[in-house]
């Protein structure tokens, strides 16, 4: 069947634009970036097309390694937090009435009408020393001195979680929505308590949604440099920030390309690992 289908010329024509688009805007730039990462940096922003491994060697320097470690830490922290908040959110949202679902969906979408950059500036107003959060905490008498939240690691985590949570919520929601609840009833009928039935049936069957959510949050959280810039001050340097710095101020495009390639490989590795783990769990019935 499949072979026959492939032979149809009409189908090829319909997917042709897709191929052209992918080659022009995904495969092409990717190959260019990989090539660039092996090129030599000239004076200014010139690139000399001479093969070298120096760019990759340079990544081994402590200051750059540090940024990788920090990026991963931040990405894992935010992704875990997003999972813990997003899963229940998406789950209960899927259990709302049709009207409730629509309303909730609207509430989630509204922030997207504003640029995420501007929304990050909003967080400055909330988190700064004389900001909304400190004001409330002090009025409640919980703290005497304003907390220094802005320009710290937690502030960046807050920004990341805030920016990426909707993606987790929506992908969990869509998989919980598709759940066949009679399976949960069957588990309960066979002797499982509420919690047991959730872990044995619901969680396992909605794992693909959770996985999609993780991928949709983990990858961006490695690269959203402007959040670290705005909410982290100069203290938090992520790979994204280093790359941005090398492209703009440092004017070292080949090195930036090498950083990007390594980041891409590491991210893919993480996702592969995560998939592997969840998939095994899926088949073997652990948990």
């Amino acid at each position, binding site marked *: 069947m499949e072979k026959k289908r492939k032979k149809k010329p009409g189908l090829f024509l319909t997917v042709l634009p897709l191929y052209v688009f992918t080659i022009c805007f995904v495969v092409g730039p990717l190959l260019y970036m990989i090539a660039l990462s092996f090129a030599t940096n000239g004076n200014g922003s010139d690139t000399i097309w001479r093969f070298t491994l120096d760019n990759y060697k340079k990544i081994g320097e402590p200051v750059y390694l540090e940024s990788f470690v920090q990026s991963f830490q931040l990405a894992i922290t935010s992704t875990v937090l997003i999972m813990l908040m997003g899963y229940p959110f998406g789950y209960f949202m899927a259990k709302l009435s049709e009207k409730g679902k629509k309303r909730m969906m609207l509430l989630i979408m509204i922030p997207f009408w504003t640029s995420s950059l501007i929304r990050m500036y909003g967080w400055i107003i909330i988190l700064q020393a004389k900001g909304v959060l400190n004001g409330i905490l002090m009025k409640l008498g919980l703290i005497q001195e304003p907390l220094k939240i802005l320009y710290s690691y937690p502030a960046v985590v807050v920004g990341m979680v805030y920016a990426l949570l909707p993606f987790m919520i929506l992908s969990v929601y869509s998989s919980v929505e598709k759940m*066949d609840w009679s399976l949960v009833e069957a*588990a309960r009928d066979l002797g499982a308590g509420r919690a047991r039935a959730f872990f044995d049936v619901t969680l396992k069957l909605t794992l693909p949604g959770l996985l999609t959510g993780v991928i949709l949050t983990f990858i961006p959280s490695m690269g959203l440099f402007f959040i670290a810039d705005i909410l982290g001050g100069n203290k938090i340097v992520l790979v994204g920030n280093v790359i941005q710095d090398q492209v703009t101020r440092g004017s070292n495009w080949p090195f930036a390309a090498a950083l990007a390639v390594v980041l891409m490989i590491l991210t893919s590795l993480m996702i592969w690992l995560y998939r592997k783990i969840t998939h095994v769990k899926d088949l073997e019935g652990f948990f």
Partner: protein
Amino acid sequence: MSETLLELRNIKKSFGTTDVLNGIGLSISRGEFITFLGASGCGKTTTLRIIAGLEKPDEGQVLLEGRDVTYLEPHQRDVNTVFQNYALFPHMNVEANVGYGLKIRKVPKEEIKKRVSDMLKLVQLDGYEKRMPSELSGGQKQRVAIARALINSPKLLLLDEPLGALDLKLRRAMQTELKRLQKKLGITFLYITHDQEEAINMSDRIVVMREGKFEQIGTPDEIYNCPKTSYVADFVGNANIIEGIVRQAGEEEILVETEGQIVKAVSDPGVQAGDKISLAVRRENMKVCGDCEEGLEAVLKDKSFQAGQLHMTLNLNSGKEITVSRYGMDAPLSQGQKVRISWEPQHAVPVDIRREA
């Protein structure tokens, strides 16, 4: 029969403004095969879900072996269910599906394996342990669902239209199979169906449900041969319902006036002269005759031949439609012909007896 296993006391349930169950009560004995028969929306599935604990009644009690289990959670009662759509766990293989109940009860792994294998043998699925539900046919899924419920040795097994999705031939085979299993294991079965044939073939007792109430409870024989209401007669026996007034009530026969004529019917202790009643006469018990002197006058409207049976649609003088079925094709009657319909008195059962006060 023997001791009571399950008792329902005055169960009421409504969803929103719709009353689904209007105070039903019933006792089920241990080892019984009891069937709830009714059209869709009559409340039979809700009753089952209340017994399973998946739904809580608004009023009334469910007693299992004399213990009030009305508000216990599903996992706290010795009742298992075979769901309408099987509800097999798609991410577990057959072995894990069937062994799930035992795994929760922390039965040792080796024992689970052995009991699963025995149970699969019982439902004739040995060797299917490692298959995933998606690789099974409808009939096989059904067997897995039954095995998964039975392995827990429930006191009561609830079956919600378990054969609904199977084709006719498989359904018949599974009916026999289920009955065999029930006899062998001695487990009480509460079976739900809208198929009267299924109910009659398998049950010790049938409960006919209608609009959240029990219309009639009895053995298949009682339900089929002595329906109490026209609904039961029609739903279970495909009977024609003819309304009339009792003119004379005798020891064995009664005389009923209908369509301006007097017809005979079997006597019923509750019937007196002057009562308004309906007569239930099953399709196959009616005789259609082209040149008879006796019987109700009618006009043959339509003939059709289905599954070895000839179905004739006739109109009485009042315009009321009557369906008559008989085996074979040998009816030398043509459409539009004037005929007479008659029956043996014992085949006309008085139902819906109403007495003017």
